[in-house]
């Protein structure tokens, strides 16, 4: 059964949409990530216009983040104060990101910037995750880990506007999470992702937050960043297709349940290693498409 997507203005088989949602949902349940970095390129691959894919994926991530954050809230794994500051930065950053998105589309370079962002950030994050998980696997075989400091002190801790974050056991400048939120917000708006894959490692290694609260806090602020992207894209470009988002979500919710069960069978560093390979796979595929000569150098777009 085909369904005509009213905003994307293409018709797609309903099984493909729910299957995409289910497949990416399974992986996001397995690895504990949002999956936007997989879904947006897949939607574009299946013929959804890039602008619609990015904006619609933001809408879907609102739903999946709400669904995910509730479990973390029950366990008390959300630092609302830190989340609030990241959110303020994120809302500012994503607003800038949407404006940048519109500008790049006008000059016809949005596809390039989306592709380059994917190659650069997935490449960096993938490499870091892969090397970290390999080191952990090797170290666990040798055993006898040395207990280090809670976190490293560096120049970042000399910045003004210091605040105490009880839940994260931190006393750091608010400027850092504000800038981090803004930076990830810009990327979220341009790449059609929640940004968890950058936010989570940055919270651990840059801010020094305990790992128990990072996922919940990241999900909490992603809700507001993606909601902001959804609203701004709706107003500026009318590219949010909530029929598509709803069908993807339906598949994703079911897929995530199976994914999280499958995830319990694997060890943490194994999961991170597999996730790193997947992230690098997407990075290489998109990078390869940029480098090889396109079949047809000319392309058209109806402006209407």
């Amino acid at each position, binding site marked *: *059964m*085909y*369904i*005509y997507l*009213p*905003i*994307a*203005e*293409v*018709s797609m088989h309903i099984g493909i949409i729910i299957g995409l949602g289910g497949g990416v949902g399974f992986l996001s349940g397995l690895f504990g990530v949002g999956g936007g970095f997989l879904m947006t390129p897949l939607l574009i691959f299946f013929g959804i*216009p890039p*602008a*619609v894919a990015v904006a619609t994926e933001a*809408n879907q991530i*609102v*739903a999946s*983040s*709400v*669904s*995910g954050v*509730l*479990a973390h809230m029950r366990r008390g794994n959300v630092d609302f104060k830190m989340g609030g500051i990241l959110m303020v930065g994120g809302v500012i950053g994503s607003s800038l990101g949407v404006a940048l998105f519109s500008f790049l*589309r*006008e*000059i*016809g*370079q*949005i*596809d*390039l910037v989306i592709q380059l962002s994917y190659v650069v950030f997935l490449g960096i994050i993938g490499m870091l995750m892969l090397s970290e998980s390999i080191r952990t696997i090797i170290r666990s075989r040798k055993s006898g880990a040395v207990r280090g400091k809670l976190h490293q002190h560096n120049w970042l801790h000399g910045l003004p506007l210091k605040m105490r974050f009880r839940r994260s056991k931190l006393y750091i400048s608010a400027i850092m999470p504000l800038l981090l939120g803004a930076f990830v917000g810009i990327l979220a708006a341009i790449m059609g992702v929640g940004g968890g894959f950058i936010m989570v490692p940055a919270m651990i290694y840059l801010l020094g937050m305990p790992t128990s609260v990072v996922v919940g806090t990241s999900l909490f602020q992603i*809700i507001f960043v993606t*909601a902001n992207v*959804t*609203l701004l*894209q*709706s*107003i500026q*470009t*009318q*590219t*949010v297709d*909530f*029929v598509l*988002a*709803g069908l993807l*979500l339906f598949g994703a*919710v079911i897929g995530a*349940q199976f994914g999280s069960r499958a995830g319990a069978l694997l060890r943490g560093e194994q999961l991170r290693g597999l996730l790193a390979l997947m992230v690098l796979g997407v990075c290489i595929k998109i990078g390869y498409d940029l*480098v*090889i000569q*396109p079949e*047809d*150098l*000319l*392309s*058209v*777009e*109806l*402006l*209407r």
Partner: protein
Amino acid sequence: MIGYGTWLGAVRQLTLGLAVLLLAMPAMAAPSRLVADLSDSHVDITSSYHGTELILFGAYEGAPGDDLVLIVEGPATDIAQRRKEKKAGIWVNGETLVWQQAPSFYHVFATDDLAAIADKDALSKADVGPLARGLMLVAGEAQGSNGHGGGALATTGAVTAGTAAQQAGLSRNMNNNGLWQLQPALISTQQDMLFRAQLSLPSNVPTGDYLVRVLHFRDGVAISEKTTDMNIRKAGLSALIYRFAHEYSVFYGLFAIVFAVASGWLAAVAFRRG
């Protein structure tokens, strides 16, 4: 004595002769009569739309060796044409050029190859082919385009007819996305009187008012033309959502957020119990 059969045969011949005479008479006075119609002149794009097929049919007063050309033309639109260039090792979009007011849809049907029906000048005179009317190419920027239409055009450069390569590229790209079909699909006629063509509308068909033109060619000249209208509209729920998104975009955005929050919450609750 004249046999009954022979008599009947004579009557039949006379009737046929009369019929031919009757058909031929107006053809001498006026160009030639031509009627055309569509199996459906209103196409609704609903939630279940996945392309559709229409029958274009009609009758004409033909003679052996006559040809028909059928053209289904969609609303005019600006079409941005981009060319990839290699910069710093990667392929990026170079200059954007805009074809002004080009047909968003253009499917041609004919009884023969266009070149065999008439020469270039005659085809051009009869306005056959989207490039026949002299489409103009402008260096410009597609303003506020959202990847699938909805933009305007700001011209910044000279107006040209475009090079052969640019024209060929436009035809090729539009053909590949199913919106143009310039190499005519062959149609068959019956006894130089009836014609029938099957028009396939793709799932990405542009909405708006369409014009269907039927041209009757004799000895390389268009002797008669008939036009009929068709329109393609979004309808039902998909039209409602589209209008909501475009006319009340703030509320649409808020609705999309509320919808996402509610369904996310519902999913969490449903699977906590399960």
